[in-house]
């Protein structure tokens, strides 16, 4: 049995094909990461798999159960932490988690015991009696994570678990998620951060414009780049001639990102030497030159023609604040 099995899922909103025939399946016990830029369809896919919306066509099973025809049974077996920390500002941390526990049909005493356990695990025991509106952004995310765990889900869905949190909290959340995974929970997470997918996911699905465009382990995806690459940084003035020089060395067009140019280096050091020679021939002195392993960013660029991350810094918080 697959933990998640989605076949040819299509979902449109008006003219937008948010999901354009996504097929993905993976077995229990692993961390599967959906990687893609904003608007790629990651959240829509999560919403289909967690029964929040129905697909226009295609079928999906979670823990072997159809998400459309047996939605209630699916909900008993999943946990979801969405992009907006969906916790109640005016309840305490403990009240929030107990409430969710009760809604998973735990008895009052079970819900309380399980809440204590989960709060201990996410290190919020000290803050459990405070109303959530006094929590920091990172604490809210952790509480949201706790809420998704309290029902002991077979499959846990985390939609961009670290978007909008500061770097320190991100590392802290990564540690928590890794611990969680050690206990055997199947996890599906989405992210727009390559580093996050690289660190947490056993298997990565690259999603763009509503389609799964590549899939594999981090290493497999990197190997699609054909091993090592040579990357040079040049000045604005040198960019044109450097591009031409690299084209003479490589069998394909160099990948360009600002003033940084990258080509595959099948012969490693030998390719590097060739690059230096060609650059010297056109009197270009690179500001930096390196032979390195390909990153997921290279993969993304190869697959989609654009970068995965629009910017390196975390996106601004999308948590909505109450108005009145």
């Amino acid at each position, binding site marked *: *049995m697959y933990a998640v099995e989605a076949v040819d899922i299509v979902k449109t909103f008006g003219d937008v094909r948010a999901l354009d025939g996504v097929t993905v399946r993976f077995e229990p016990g692993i961390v599967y990461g959906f990687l893609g830029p904003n608007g790629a369809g990651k959240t829509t896919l999560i919403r289909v798999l*967690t*029964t*929040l*919306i*129905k697909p226009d066509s295609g079928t999906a*099973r979670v*823990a*072997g*159960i159809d998400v459309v025809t*047996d939605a*209630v*049974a699916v*909900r*008993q077996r*999943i*946990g*979801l932490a*969405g*992009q*907006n*920390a*969906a*916790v*109640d*500002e*005016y*309840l305490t941390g403990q*009240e929030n988690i107990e*409430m*969710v526990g*009760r*809604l*998973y*049909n735990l008895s009052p005493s079970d819900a309380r015991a399980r809440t204590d356990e989960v709060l201990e695990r996410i290190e919020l025991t000290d803050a459990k009696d405070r*109303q959530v509106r006094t929590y920091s952004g990172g604490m809210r995310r952790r509480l949201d994570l706790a*809420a998704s765990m309290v*029902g002991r889900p077979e499959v846990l869905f985390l939609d961009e678990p670290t978007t909008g949190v500061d770097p320190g909290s991100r590392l802290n959340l990564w540690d928590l998620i890794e611990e969680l995974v050690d206990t055997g929970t199947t996890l599906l997470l989405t992210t727009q951060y390559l580093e996050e997918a690289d660190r947490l996911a056993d298997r990565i699905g690259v999603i763009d414009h509503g389609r799964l465009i590549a899939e594999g382990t981090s290493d497999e995806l990197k190997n699609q780049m054909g091993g090592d690459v040579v990357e040079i940084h040049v000045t604005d003035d040198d960019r044109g001639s450097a591009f031409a020089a690299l084209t003479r060395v490589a069998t394909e067009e160099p990948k360009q990102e600002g003033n940084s140019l990258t080509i595959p280096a099948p012969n490693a050091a030998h390719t590097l030497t060739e690059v230096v020679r060609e650059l010297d021939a056109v009197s270009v002195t690179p500001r930096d030159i390196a032979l390195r392993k390909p990153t997921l960013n290279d993969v993304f660029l190869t697959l989609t023609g654009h970068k995965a991350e629009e910017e390196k810094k975390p996106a601004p918080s999308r948590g*909505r604040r*109450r*108005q*009145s």
Partner: protein
Amino acid sequence: MTATAEKLQKRVGVRETLNHISVITKRNMLRNIRLPQLVFFATVQPVMFLLLFNFVFGGAITEGTPAAPEDYINFLIPGILVQTAVFGATQTSLGLTEDLATGIIDRFRSLPMARSAVLAGRTIADLVRNVFVNTLMLFVGFLLGWRFEQGFPSMVLGVAIVLLFGYSMSWVMATIGLTVKSPEAAQTAGFLPIFPLVFASSVFVPVETMPSWLQTFAEVQPITILTNTARSLMLPEEVAASLGLDTGTLILQSLAWTAGILLVFAPWAVRQYRRAVD
């Protein structure tokens, strides 16, 4: 390969549903107590209305009221109970739209809980809130000289009928809120039908003083019916009779309005809820 060896639960059971409703009700009640603006809306504002209407209008409005200006409070209290219950119902749309905006509804929907619990838990919590506010109004009214003249059971019956009507109005407000979706719009849209209904009624003044076209409307609309029902159960019997209030008929009419509103708006609210979230 599927997991159908064990029987899959298709629906949420009745017992579980009741549990979920009580959990959501409790959550909303905690919010009603903890949100400063909600506490203000539930205490200071209605008391302010009561004091203003009693002291500002009380002197002017004697025609058609039980007797002397000092008796205006006895005329006013049954009306202000209705006004308070109906104003209180707008909190239902506010609460639901805020839940939609914060994303907590998504969490609820991903849980194996009864969908009806979100709406039922909200309206019941708002009913509890209305019980509290109306009790507060009666207490302040008592300090201002209000007395009920037909005994405790009649008074309680009057309050209960008003609260039940307020509960049905919560479903109207739920429908409006789930249609407009944003908290700000919900507040505006909610008060739009309420203001003419409450003020073009017998709540604050006798309808006889209105122009005849308005009087016709005021006499048949539910707020007047409810107000008159509460009056007929709280004023001295001879005063109620002199105002032309027939208790039995009024109670039936009030319950009919309440049932009618519930029958139309409860299913409508559920439908709008599905639309708002799917």
